[in-house]
C-alpha cells in the first residue's frame, strides 16, 4: 500500500478507495459527469449534495449495484470489477443504505452473518456465529445487544449498529453510510459518532452522507461536494463554513439558511392544559401565540408526535384540555379540531399526509371540500384554488393535475401546507417538516414557516434537528419522557443547550427495547 495522500495526515493515511472520472448515464439523464473522489484509511469523508446531485448513483457504482458508463474505481490501487456487489464486499467495500436491509424476524447474529454464515461441515456453526457476532458488537462498544435477540425487538438505532456489525463481518476497509442519522435522534447520533470514531481508529475509511451540516463539521475530516453530477469541491476540510458548503452545493449563494426569527407575542391561539395520554404524554401544558414559531424538541420517543396527535384529536387523551380561541375541543374529533382552526402536517408525509396517487388538487382541497360543495362539487373552482396555493408557495411543479407521488419531498411538504392554508387554519402543527428534504428546500420551508407566523398564524414546529429549532423558533420547548422539561428563548437557544435538556441526565438512551 503506497501513500497517495495529497497531504500527510496523522499516521500513514493510505488511500483505500479512489474514484476517477466516474460517469454514469441513464437514457436521457447524465447522473454522474466525471466525479473524482478518494477515501483514506482512518478518515471520515463526508459526501454532500442536494437531492439528485448523484450521491446515490455514486455509492451504487462503488458498491457494485450499478455499472458505471466510464471511469475507474480502485480499491488499494487495484480496479474493482464492475457490477459485482459480491466482489466489492470481498474487497472490503461495505455499504449501509438508508433503508436498513435487515431481516426483522431473524436474530442479530443471523443478520450479521446473513449470506456468509460460518459452517461446520454442511451444518451452520451456530455457536461460532453467536460468539463472532458478540465480538463484532463488542468491537463497536455495544456488547449490550444480545446476538440472540430478534432484530424486530431492537430500536432503529440498535438495528443500525447491527448493520454496521454486518459490514465489519466482511472485514470492511471502506464503510459507506447513506444518511445514517436520518432515523436517529440527537442522543442516538452521539452513539453513532462514537461507533464511527472506533472504526476510524481501527483504520477503516468511512464515507458519510448527510444533509445535516452540523454533523459534517463534527464527525468529518474532509468533504466532497457534489452538484449536478459533478464534483463541485473535492476533499476540502470539513470545517469549511456552512455558508460556503451551501454555496458550493447549489452553485449560488443561498442568502441564509435561517430567515429572520418571528417575534411572536400575539394573542393566545391554542392552549394545552395538563394533557395526558400515558405512557407517551404525561401532563403537558403550554400555549401558542399568534405570530410565533414554537419549537418542540426532544429525542425520538419523547412523546412529541403523540402530543401533536392528541391535540388534533387523532388519539384519545386521558386527561387535560385543549382550548382553541377560548373553546374546549372534544377529544377524538379531528374534524372539530380542524373546524376550530388546527392543521397537522404529520411526521410521515407519504403514509399519513398525502394520497400519493391523487392529483395535487384533490390533496389540497380534501380538508376544505365544504367550500366547493353546493350540492355538487365545483371541480373547476377546486383546481383554480389549488393552483393559486401551489403558486403562492413556489411549488414545483405548480400544475394541480400532477400526482402527488411525482413530487420531491420538499414539494410534497408544500402540498400539505397548501391544504391547511386553503383551509385558513390559525395554528399549524408541523411534525418533522424537513425530514428527508435537501438543504435548498429546507431553507424554503423555513422561509414559508416564518412568513406564515409573520401573517399572524401560530406555528408549532416539532423537530429532531435541534439546530433548526435554535435557528428559526421564537421559543423552544424541550420534551423528555412525555413531559416538558425546559423552555428556552429562541434568540438564546443553542443546539448544545437543547440537547442537554433532551437527554436523560444519568445514562445514555438504552438501545434495547422490551420485546412487546
Amino acid at each position, binding site marked *: 500500500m503506497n501513500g497517495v495522500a495529497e497531504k500527510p495526515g496523522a499516521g500513514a493515511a493510505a488511500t483505500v478507495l479512489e474514484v476517477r472520472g466516474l460517469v454514469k448515464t441513464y437514457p436521457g439523464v447524465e447522473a454522474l459527469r466525471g466525479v473524482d473522489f478518494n477515501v483514506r484509511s482512518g478518515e471520515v469523508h463526508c459526501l454532500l449534495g442536494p437531492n439528485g446531485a448523484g450521491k446515490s448513483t455514486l455509492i451504487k457504482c462503488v458498491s457494485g449495484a450499478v455499472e458505471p458508463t466510464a471511469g475507474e474505481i480502485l480499491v488499494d490501487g487495484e480496479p474493482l470489477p464492475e457490477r459485482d456487489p459480491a466482489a466489492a464486499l470481498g474487497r472490503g467495500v461495505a455499504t449501509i443504505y438508508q433503508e436498513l436491509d435487515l431481516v426483522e424476524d431473524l436474530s442479530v447474529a443471523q443478520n450479521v452473518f446473513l449470506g456468509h454464515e460460518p459452517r461446520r461441515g454442511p451444518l451452520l456453526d451456530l455457536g461460532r456465529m453467536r460468539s463472532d457476532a458478540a465480538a463484532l458488537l463488542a468491537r463497536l462498544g455495544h456488547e449490550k445487544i444480545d446476538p440472540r435477540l430478534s432484530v424486530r425487538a431492537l430500536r432503529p438505532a440498535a438495528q443500525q449498529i447491527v448493520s454496521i456489525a454486518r459490514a465489519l463481518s466482511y472485514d470492511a476497509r471502506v464503510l459507506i453510510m447513506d444518511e445514517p442519522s436520518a432515523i436517529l435522534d440527537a442522543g442516538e447520533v452521539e452513539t453513532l459518532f462514537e461507533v464511527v470514531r472506533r472504526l476510524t481508529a481501527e483504520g477503516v475509511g468511512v464515507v458519510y452522507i448527510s444533509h445535516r451540516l452540523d454533523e459534517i463539521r463534527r464527525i468529518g475530516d474532509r468533504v466532497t461536494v457534489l452538484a449536478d453530477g459533478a464534483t463541485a469541491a473535492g476533499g476540502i476540510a470539513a470545517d469549511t463554513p456552512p455558508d460556503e458548503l451551501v454555496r458550493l452545493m447549489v452553485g449560488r449563494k443561498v442568502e441564509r439558511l435561517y430567515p429572520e426569527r418571528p417575534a411572536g407575542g400575539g394573542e393566545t391561539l391554542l392552549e394545552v392544559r395538563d394533557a395526558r395520554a400515558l405512557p407517551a404524554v404525561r401532563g403537558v401544558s403550554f400555549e401558542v401565540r399568534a405570530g410565533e414559531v414554537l419549537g418542540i424538541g426532544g429525542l425520538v420517543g419523547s412523546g412529541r408526535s403523540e402530543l401533536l396527535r392528541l391535540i388534533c384529536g387523532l388519539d384519545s387523551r386521558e386527561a387535560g384540555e385543549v382550548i382553541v380561541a377560548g373553546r374546549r375541543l372534544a377529544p377524538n374529533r379531528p*374534524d372539530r379540531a380542524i*373546524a376550530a382552526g388546527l392543521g397537522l402536517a404529520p411526521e410521515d408525509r407519504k403514509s399519513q*399526509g398525502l394520497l400519493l396517487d*391523487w392529483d395535487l388538487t384533490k390533496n389540497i382541497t380534501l*380538508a376544505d371540500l365544504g367550500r366547493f360543495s353546493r350540492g355538487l362539487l365545483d371541480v373547476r373552482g377546486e383546481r383554480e384554488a389549488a393552483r393559486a396555493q401551489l403558486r403562492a408557495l413556489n411549488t414545483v411543479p405548480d400544475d394541480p393535475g400532477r400526482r402527488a407521488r411525482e413530487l420531491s419531498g420538499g414539494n410534497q411538504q408544500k402540498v400539505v401546507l397548501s391544504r391547511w392554508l386553503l383551509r385558513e387554519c390559525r395554528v399549524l402543527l408541523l411534525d418533522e417538516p424537513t425530514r428527508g428534504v435537501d438543504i435548498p428546500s429546507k431553507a424554503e420551508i423555513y422561509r414559508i414557516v416564518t412568513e406564515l407566523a409573520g401573517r399572524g398564524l401560530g406555528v408549532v414546529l416539532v423537530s429532531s434537528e435541534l439546530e433548526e429549532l435554535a435557528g428559526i423558533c421564537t421559543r423552544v420547548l424541550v420534551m423528555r419522557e412525555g413531559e416538558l422539561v425546559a423552555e428556552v428563548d429562541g434568540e438564546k437557544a443553542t443546539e448544545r443547550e437543547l440537547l442537554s435538556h433532551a437527554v436523560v441526565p444519568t445514562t445514555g438512551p438504552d438501545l434495547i427495547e422490551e420485546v412487546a
Partner: protein
Amino acid sequence: MNQAAALRNRFGALQFQEYALGLVVIALFVTGAILRPDTFPTWDNVRNMLTQASIIGVLAVGMTFVIATSGIDLSVGSMVAAAGVFGGTLVDPSGGTLLFIAGAIGFAVLLGTINATAITLGRVVPFIATLAMLSIARGLALLLNDKLPVGLLDLNGGSYGDPAPFSLLWFGTGKILGIPISVWVFLGIVVGGWVVLNRSRFGRYVVAVGGNREAARIAGVPVRKVIFSVYVLSGLMAGIATVLLCARLGSASPVSGNLYELDAIGAVVIGGTSLAGGRATMVGTFLGVLTFALIFSLMTQLDLSTEIQQVTKGAIVLGAVLIQRPEARY
C-alpha cells in the same frame, strides 16, 4: 401541454382501462353477431341482456362504493333473497306494491346497517362481517316463509291484461320508449352513482378513506361515518335489486340471488376499481356489468352449460384481479 396534462388528469388515469373495456364490449358484441347472426344482434336479445344485467348492475353500483373504501360486501346475494321473502310475507295474502317495495328495501337497508355497525363500531373486518351476514340473511330468507317462495302475481295493479303502471309487475315487464323499466332504473342509478362518486363531497371522502385512511382522518374526513354509509348504501342497492328481481319473476324466492355477490364484485373489479381501495370508476363498473352480460348471453347462445359458465365467471374475476395487481403498490 399543461392543458393536456390537466385534461388527462381530469378524467383520471383510469381512462385507459375504461377505453380498453369499451373496446372489449364492442368486440364481444361483434363476435356474437358473427357466431349467431340471426339471434344475437337482435333488439330482443339486447333488451333481454340489459334486463338481466340491470339487477347485478344495481348491486355493482353499491359495491363500487364499498370496494372504493377497500372494503367488500359478500352478503348482497343473500340480502336480495331475504328482502324479497320479507316483503312477500308482508303483502301475503293482502297488501299492495308500495308495502312490498317499502318492506323489501327497508329490510335490506336494515341488514346493511347491521353490516355497517359490525364493521365500524364492532371493528369486525368487512370480509368476515359480510360473510356472516351472507349466512344470516340466507337463513332468514328460508325461515321467514318456511323455505317456500311467495307468489306476487297479485301485485299487478288490478288489471287483467298488462300490469298497470307503477304496480310491482310493471317494474318487471313494463317498458318506456321500448326500453324495460328495470333498465331505466339501472341506468338512472349508474348516472346517480357517477355523480355521487365524482362530484360530491361524500364520493371524494369514500375514495380518500380507501386510498389512505390515516391521511384522510388527519385531513378531517369522518372516516367511520363514511365507512358506515357505504354498507348502508350497499344494503339500499340490494333492496332495489330485490324489487327488480321479484317484479320480473312475479315471486320472491328464498333461494334467489345465489352468487350475485360474485357477479357484482367481478363487474366492479373488471371495471378497474381497485380492490386495495383509493381508485374507483363508475363508468368502469357499468362497462364491467355489460361485459359480464355479453359473455354469458353469448355462452348461452352457444349452448355452453351453466357449469362451464360458472367456471368462466370465476376465471374472469381471478384474471381481472391479477391484471390489477402490478398497479397496486404495497
